C-alpha cells in the first residue's frame, strides 16, 4: 500500500470532499464535510451532543461509509473501496472507544496484544512490546486481569494501549478522559501527545475544554448540526507536522 498516492496534497493524511452521511432514509447527520488533516497533526473534535462527532469518527475509523462525497485516507479513496480492502487500512488506525470495547473474557495482556496478533505477528514479537506498553500505561502488574475486574481508568488505559501498540499512523480517541479523574486525564493526554511527537496523527473527540487548553499547538474542529465549523482555521491551513 503506497502512502501518498492519489490526488491529495503531500502531507495530507485525511481529506474529505463534500462528504455527507445519513443512516437509512433519515435526514443527513453529516453534511458537506470538506476538510483536510495533516500528517502528524493533533486535532480536537468538539461540538454539542448530537452534532455528529461519533458519526464523523466512525467515518474516520472506517466503521461507516459516507453516503455521498469523496473520502481519502492515507492518500487512497476509500468511500467506495472494496470491503476486502478495508482491514489493511484499519490496521493503520488505532481507536480508543468511549466505552473502551475491551473483550471481557480476555486478559488485559491479550486485549492489548490483539492488534499485533491480527496483523500476523508471532508470539515472540508480541510478548515484549505488550509488556512494555502495559508498563507505559502503568498496568504492568495487571496484565492477567480481565476487564470486569479493572477500574474504569484502568480499562481506559488498556484501551489506549491497544490503540497504540501497533504504532498506527492515526489515533482516534472518543472522549478518552471521560471516565477518569483529572490526574489520569493528564496522564492519558501525555500518552497521546507522546505518540503525536513520534509522528502519529491524533484526533480526539472531547467536551473537556481543559484538555484542549492543555495541548498547545492542537487544532480545533467543531461540528454543529452535522456541519463543520473551523474556529482555529485548522482545516483551511493544515498545521505542519511535528518535527
Amino acid at each position: 500500500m503506497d502512502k501518498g498516492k492519489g490526488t491529495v496534497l503531500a502531507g495530507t493524511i485525511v481529506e474529505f470532499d463534500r462528504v455527507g452521511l445519513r443512516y437509512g432514509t433519515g435526514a443527513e447527520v453529516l453534511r458537506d464535510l470538506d476538510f483536510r488533516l495533516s500528517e502528524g497533526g493533533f486535532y480536537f473534535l468538539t461540538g454539542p451532543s448530537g452534532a455528529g462527532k461519533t458519526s464523523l469518527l466512525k467515518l474516520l475509523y472506517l466503521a461507516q461509509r459516507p453516503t455521498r462525497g469523496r473520502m481519502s485516507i492515507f492518500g487512497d479513496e476509500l468511500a467506495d473501496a472494496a470491503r476486502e480492502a478495508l482491514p489493511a487500512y484499519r490496521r493503520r488506525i488505532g481507536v480508543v472507544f468511549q466505552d473502551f470495547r475491551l473483550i471481557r473474557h480476555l486478559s488485559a495482556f491479550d486485549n492489548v496484544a490483539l492488534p499485533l496478533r491480527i496483523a500476523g505477528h508471532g508470539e515472540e514479537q508480541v510478548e515484549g512490546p505488550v509488556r512494555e506498553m502495559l508498563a507505559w500505561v502503568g498496568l504492568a502488574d495487571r496484565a492477567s486481569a480481565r476487564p470486569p475486574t479493572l477500574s474504569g481508568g484502568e480499562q481506559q488505559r488498556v484501551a489506549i494501549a491497544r490503540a497504540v501498540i501497533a504504532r498506527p499512523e492515526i489515533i482516534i480517541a472518543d472522549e478518552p478522559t471521560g471516565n477518569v479523574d483529572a490526574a489520569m486525564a493528564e496522564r492519558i493526554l501525555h500518552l497521546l501527545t507522546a505518540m503525536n511527537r513520534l509522528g502519529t496523527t491524533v484526533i480526539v473527540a472531547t467536551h473537556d475544554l481543559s484538555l484542549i487548553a492543555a495541548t498547545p499547538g492542537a487544532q480545533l474542529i467543531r461540528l454543529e448540526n452535522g456541519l463543520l465549523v473551523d474556529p482555529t482555521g485548522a482545516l483551511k491551513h493544515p498545521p505542519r507536522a511535528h518535527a
Partner: protein
Amino acid sequence: MSLLIISEPEKRLIPSSGMRGPVPLLIAIMTFVMVVVAAAGLALANSAMVVKSGVEHRYSIQIADGATKAPAAIAAARGAPGVTRVEQVPPADLRRTLERWLGPAAVDADLPLPAIIDVDLASGADPAAIGQAIERAVPGAQFIAHRSSLAPLLQALRGLTLLALGLVMLIAAASAAAIVLAARGALDNHRATIEVMHGIGATDRQVAQLFVRQIAIDALLGGLAGAAAAGLVIALILGRASTATILSGAPPLGWGDAFLLGLLPIVVALLATLVAWGALLRALRERL
C-alpha cells in the same frame, strides 16, 4: 485443513462451548438417523444384488400334467448347449408347497401336479434357443426365467434402496441448514468481539476461522457419538434373524458396508465444516 488450525491466543478469543452448545447434540441425532437409514439402504441393495445374482441364470421348465413328459424335457434340456444343471423339483416338495395353500389334505390328495424342472444356464447361453428345443421335445412345456417372476420384488428393493439414499441426502441437507443457523447464532453471540476484531483490522477469514474450528470439533464429536449409537442399534438388529438374511441367504451388511457407514460421521463433520465456513463468510459480508 489449514482453516482448522489456530493458535492458543486465538482459541481464547472465542471460548469453547465444551460440547454444551446445540451443535453436537443436533449432529449426533442427525448422524444416528443417517447411519441407520444408510445401513438399511445398503442391506436392501445387498439383498437385491444377492437375489438378482442367484436367479440371473436360473430357469424353470413347467409342464402341466408333467409326470410322464418330464423325462423327455429333462433329456432335451441336458442336450441343449449352455445348460449347466438340470434338476427336477421332487413331487413331495411340490405337495408341501401346496399344503401351505390347501392344508394338510393336499399332501395325500391325488391332485394332478405339474412337473417343475430347474435349469441353470452358463453365461452367454441362448435361453430362447434352449426354450425352443424344449418346446420341440415337449409341446406345451414352458421355459420360464426366474428373474421375470422376481422382477417386482427386485424393483421394490431397488426403490427402497433409492428411498434410503434420498433420505440420507435429505438428512444431510437438514444438517447443513441446522449448521447454518448455528453458525449465525454463534456470530450473534459474539457480536461484540467480532466488532472489536473488525475495527482493529481483522479480515472475515480471520474471524470465521475462530468459529469454524469449534463447529468442526462439535460436528465430529457429535457425529462419532451418533454413529456409535447407530452402530450399536444395527448390531442389535443384525444379532437377530433379519428379513434380508432370510431373503437372500447372506449377511445383509459386509465389512465394506461397515467401512462406508464408519465414514459417514467424518463426511458429516466435513460437510458441517464447509457449510459453516460458507455461512460465516456470507454472514460477515453483511457487515462493513
